[in-house]
């Protein structure tokens, strides 16, 4: 019971963090048709910017400034890179973001080195929020949850309750019509791209010190975010939300379970032959592969994803 509740809380925290990444990716994809390969690189940039700011003026200014900086970088990338690549089609855009991810990782190597940096949780949040069945739930996890949920509510309100949100929604499906009505659609694209990358940056700011801030963090999270988007259904925010929580919980639960297939069979009284490597793997060891297995299963049984629209 204790394990279930604590893992569930941790899984939801991690899932919400993943959703901050996948929501930006989904918005950018459904609006511009661009699969931003460098999305996780902006997550990494957020963490490194926040680390740099925290060493200079502390964590709290970084929480605000770092995502804005990342968003500005994203907007510049859209304005001077993607818009140019757009003329050569979708493959060129995808390749551009792929090359960008490559360059960002090298620049991070160049500036901050190849080993992890010491990006710490601020002292005010370094404590226990509550204790549940003898297990302490860290205050920072609660803070992460608060920021993610706050961000979600703000994003929802922005998209559905404000004028700019309505224009963005309109530009999602009918960009030509929106342009004909006198709106500057390329600038909206730039805003959405900047906003999406800023969300990724914010995820980096609050995720970088909870997990680890190192040059490999972009690649580690990047492929998981792609899995989420495929599982949830390409271009579906609701699907991305469900898939984020699902993957977050799968990863958290699987890390804590040291049961293997042999053990499961032993429970029902069947003794498996010794020596089979596959059967002796524990779920913990399988943890890195589980999200991908889920993706393969979804692709076989429901190719359009959980909530995706049918392709035509």
């Amino acid at each position, binding site marked *: 019971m204790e394990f279930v509740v604590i893992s569930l809380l941790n899984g939801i925290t991690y899932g919400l963090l993943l959703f901050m990444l996948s929501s930006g990716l989904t918005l950018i994809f459904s609006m511009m048709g661009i699969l931003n390969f460098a999305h996780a690189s902006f997550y990494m940039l957020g963490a490194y910017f926040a680390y740099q700011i925290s060493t200079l003026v502390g964590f709290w200014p970084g929480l605000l400034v770092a995502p804005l900086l990342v968003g500005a970088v994203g907007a510049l990338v859209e304005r001077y890179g993607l818009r140019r690549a757009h003329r050569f089609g979708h493959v060129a855009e995808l*390749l551009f973001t792929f090359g960008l991810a*490559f360059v960002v990782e090298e620049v991070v190597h*160049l500036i901050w080195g190849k080993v992890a940096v010491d990006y710490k949780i601020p002292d005010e949040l370094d404590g226990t929020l509550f204790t549940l069945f003898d297990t302490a739930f860290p205050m920072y996890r609660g803070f992460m949850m608060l920021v993610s949920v706050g961000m979600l509510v703000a994003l929802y309100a922005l998209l559905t309750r404000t004028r700019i949100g309505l224009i963005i929604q309109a530009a999602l499906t009918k960009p030509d019509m929106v342009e004909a009505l006198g709106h500057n659609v390329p600038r909206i694209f730039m805003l959405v791209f900047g906003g999406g990358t800023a969300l990724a940056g914010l995820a980096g700011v609050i995720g970088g010190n909870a997990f680890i801030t190192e040059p490999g963090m972009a690649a580690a999270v990047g492929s998981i975010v792609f899995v989420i988007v495929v599982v949830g259904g*390409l271009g579906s925010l609701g699907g991305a939300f469900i898939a984020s929580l699902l993957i977050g919980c799968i990863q958290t639960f699987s890390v804590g379970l040291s049961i293997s297939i042999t053990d499961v069979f032993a429970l029902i009284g069947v003794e498996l032959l010794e020596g089979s490597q596959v059967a002796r793997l524990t779920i913990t060891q399988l943890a890195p592969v589980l999200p991908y297995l889920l993706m393969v299963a979804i*692709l076989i049984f429901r190719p359009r994803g959980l909530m995706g629209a049918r392709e035509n």
Partner: protein
Amino acid sequence: MNSAIFSRSRLALWGGCLALAFALPLVLKSGFIISLLCQIGIMAVFSLSYNMLLGQTGLLSFGHAVYYGLGAFATMHLLNAIGKGGGPLTTALLPFVGGLAGLAAGIVLGYVTTRKAGTTFAMITLGIGEMVAACSLMFPGIFGGEGGVSGNRVVGKETLLGFTWGPQVEMYGLIVLWAFACTIAMFALTQTPLGRMANAVRDNPERAEFVGYDTERVRFLMVILSGFFAGVAGGLSALNYEIVTAETLNAHTSGVVLLIAFVGGIGFFYGPIIGAILVTVMQIVIGGMTHAWLLYFGLFFLFMVLVAPGGIASLIVVQRALWQAGLLGRMLPHYAATALPVLILLAGLVGLIELGYALLTGDAGVGAGDTATKVLGMQLQLGTPGPWLTALAVTGIGIVLTRWIGGRLRSEWNATLATLHGDKA
């Protein structure tokens, strides 16, 4: 057999290339050059197999290293299993087994990946690639864990016409033979109905479906066949390096082959070969000079995406068309005039990056923050503003000059192209 594949001019071209490939080690006897040539041969086969997907079928794959790596592991394990029982002939044929492993992987993984095309295909291949890479670390018994699996390509005491494949030159000969066989086979495939249908599926899948072809099936077949050739390349790499690590099938290798094929030019059959030569030489030459080589490579790739998305091959093809139309002479002075400011700009940028690199990470032997360092062979004082201002100034001058002269080049270029197309029309 299609007569177009083996036309007299093609045979002459291939014969010439084969003769050149065999003549190279006779002229350039250094071991360094020969191992460089081996690497080029392997990468050429690998990137050609990649272009069967990206260039010919329009499938952008981020997990192509899986087939390469599995081919390499299969070859290495079979080599070790045969051990003393084999001989040079079996060793020479081992890359075929690597190919079969790649083919089998193509059947299993392609079944899942080819259900979708376009962007979704790209994401799925990325996920599948990550999955196989993660699996490879779970089974150290098969994939050798961190250390990889190593072997010895010289088995038994007998020789095949005097060859044991032990010396690097003999290995080079083997690679050349395999590379040529694979290249010709892959080229022949482009001329078959399947190769043509792959082009159709790339250009207009809807219409291909209407004509009665199953696009999913065409994609599936192309993934399987491309997996075979990637596996052969992997098998060659296993024999060449005599070690296979988990890195051969991870995302980095997949990324590199994509970069090579794209830089060379995905729209042309031989584009990836140009890419393999260029990137391998750059990697060895520039990589030997500076630690920031990957950054330069990434920037070069971004530049190619934005300026010449057709790759080097497309630039060559355009020049040839200009030459045939007698227009190349008009452009040459402009090329020459543009080269100088571009060189100035490059010198400034390289200076800035190298200074930053030396200051922040500390280059070989020089600790981070040390004031004196060697940048591009020059002894510089990092702490003083002098080198920085110089590099900045050179970059600034380069930008201004490039913009100015580059604008003239562009207008002349557009005018020349208009003439060229006008002549044709």
